[in-house]
């Protein structure tokens, strides 16, 4: 009877497409929104993830998250280096700087000044050039998204496309020359601004209006003690905040969660997706069953058991759920692929998210099916004799 159930479902094309559309929309909302939320959350600490070598971040005690810049005096670096358990400590400048393009437009970018000697904090993946090229005078490395996007050379004429920035091109930062010596791959940040890497010393030149320049001190803890212990010791000795990389990620994420309504907003949309999906799907599926009630009564009269009828309805429900979810997930994945190439937030489609949204869709179709099964099982087979 399974094939009969499927033919009944496919036969009512309007309702079948209606149910599929409802589930597809619900799937899109329930995958896309949390996927984007996770992506935004990841972006809040992506810079900490990118800078993988140091395991403790030292900063002003008032800093609340990675983009909250409260620079220190350079002398703080030496105090941190003197703390027991610190293997090494290097400076990091992190600030914003306007980049002037050839057409006169300015683009706000993240400027990162890496330790001149070690270049620690630099990008892990170089697409063009080498990290060590930062030792060339006036040199900078630009992230791939920035080079292809906002920092791309403006089109020469209207209608033409901008030319991606490449090694050898020259930018202007704070009226100073910056020679592009490399293109690097970096995770998108929450601000979605281009990232420009240079040395700490050169960053001070580009951002010379600021008195204090030392944004972060990147510390490598010795292995013989837990890094949390060393971080607490740094705080104790210097009165600066010191967090392990994981703690700093969590702090940045918590700031985003507790100081914005992002969770509520995204959560609301996900809830709406679930409710609309359940309502639309449930309603159409229920109507579909009502339309076919007469035939279910015929099956009952002809000897179909309750179990057979239950299986038929469940099969119909699970199938529409599977197809709708597949289309929804596919559409979201395509959307994610498109967004992944843009400067905006991408969509993080983890297996956990796909599993959770799949379970939510399954719940929707099973709830719909249960209502329908109840209706069919309560149906009196004798109705078949009513003309």
């Amino acid at each position, binding site marked *: 009877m399974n094939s009969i159930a499927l033919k009944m479902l496919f036969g009512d094309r309007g309702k079948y497409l209606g149910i599929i559309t409802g589930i597809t929309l619900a799937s899109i909302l329930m995958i896309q929104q949390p996927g984007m939320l996770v992506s935004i959350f990841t972006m809040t600490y992506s810079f900490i993830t990118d800078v993988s070598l140091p395991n403790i971040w030292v900063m002003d005690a008032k800093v609340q998250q990675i983009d909250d810049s409260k620079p220190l005096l350079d002398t703080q670096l030496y105090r941190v280096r003197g703390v027991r358990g610190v293997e090494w400590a290097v400076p990091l400048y992190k600030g914003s700087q306007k980049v002037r393009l050839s057409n006169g437009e300015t683009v706000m970018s993240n400027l990162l000044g890496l330790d001149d000697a070690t270049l620690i904090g630099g990008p892990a993946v170089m697409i063009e050039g080498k990290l060590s090229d930062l030792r060339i005078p006036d040199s900078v490395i630009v992230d791939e998204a920035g080079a292809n996007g906002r920092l791309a050379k403006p089109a020469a004429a209207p209608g033409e496309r901008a030319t991606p920035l490449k090694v050898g091109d020259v930018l202007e930062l704070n009226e100073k020359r910056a020679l592009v010596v490399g293109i690097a791959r970096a995770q998108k940040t929450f601000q979605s601004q281009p990232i420009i890497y240079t040395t700490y010393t050169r960053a001070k030149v580009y951002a010379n209006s600021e008195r204090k320049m030392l944004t972060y001190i990147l510390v490598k803890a010795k292995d013989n003690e837990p890094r949390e212990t060393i971080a607490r010791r740094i705080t104790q000795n210097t009165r600066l905040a010191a967090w392990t990389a994981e703690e700093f990620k969590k702090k940045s994420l918590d700031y985003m969660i507790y100081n914005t309504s992002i969770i509520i907003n995204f959560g609301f949309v996900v809830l709406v997706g679930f409710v609309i999906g359940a309502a639309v799907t449930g309603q159409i599926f229920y109507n579909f069953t009502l339309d076919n009630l007469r035939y279910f009564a*015929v099956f009952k009269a*002809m*000897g179909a058991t309750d179990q057979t009828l239950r299986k038929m309805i469940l099969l119909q429900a699970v199938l529409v759920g599977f197809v709708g979810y597949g289309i929804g997930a596919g559409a979201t994945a395509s959307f994610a692929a498109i967004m992944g190439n843009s400067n905006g937030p991408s969509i993080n489609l983890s297996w956990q998210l796909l599993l959770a949204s799949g379970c939510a869709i399954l719940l929707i179709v099973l709830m719909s099916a249960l209502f329908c099964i109840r209706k069919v099982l309560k149906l009196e087979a004798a109705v078949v004799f009513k003309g």
Partner: protein
Amino acid sequence: MEQQREVATRPSMTTGGPKDAAVLCRGVIKSYGSGETQVKALRGVDLEVHPGELLMLVGPSGCGKTTLISVVAGILDQDDGECLLFGQNLSRLPQHERVRYRGEHIGFVFQAFNLIPSLTAAENAAIPLLINGIPMEEAVTRAALLLASVGLEGREHALPSQLSGGQQQRVAVARALVHSPRLVVCDEPTSALDQVTGIRVMEGLKKLAVNDDRALVIVTHDARIFSFADRIAHMNDGAIERIENKR
């Protein structure tokens, strides 16, 4: 009621003894609702139908014909009395066994055909076989053979919407017979058809459905088909008033 019982059990009104009966109902009572709104649909019906017999149930609307065939077919439970189908008291069987018995031994033809619009004629006719666990391919093949015997050769793949009313009812007849049931119950099988088509459907039904091991009970208003009956049970107000022997 007493009179009706007397008439129904007179030897001349039956074609065999009660032991051999396909359907044997005694004192069947069935009511709907309760209290003041209670409606007595059957008021102690006695009925015998024998294998190889075509019995028609006739009477005015609301006289209990449909309720009686529902009880006979094991779809409804009577409130009182007994109804045996080939010696089997369906109301005493557990629900799942009763359903299975119905699936194996009873065929149905409905007034409104009740063909599934998205299934082909052969698939519609194959439904009882599918319910009984026969694989789709075999079921459709067997159904197609039966469709040919009701004059629908070459129309196996047609959807109900592509068939005339008479053709649809012939598909329904094939569906009622495809699993070789021992009892076929028909509810107004010709009321939606014109005279010529109705006669044609009845000819096919009588030719294919009635045999030594199968009985046919037809509920009808349609006087045009009375001539096909072996006996006609006239019902009124929940009881069989008289049984007319047409042989």
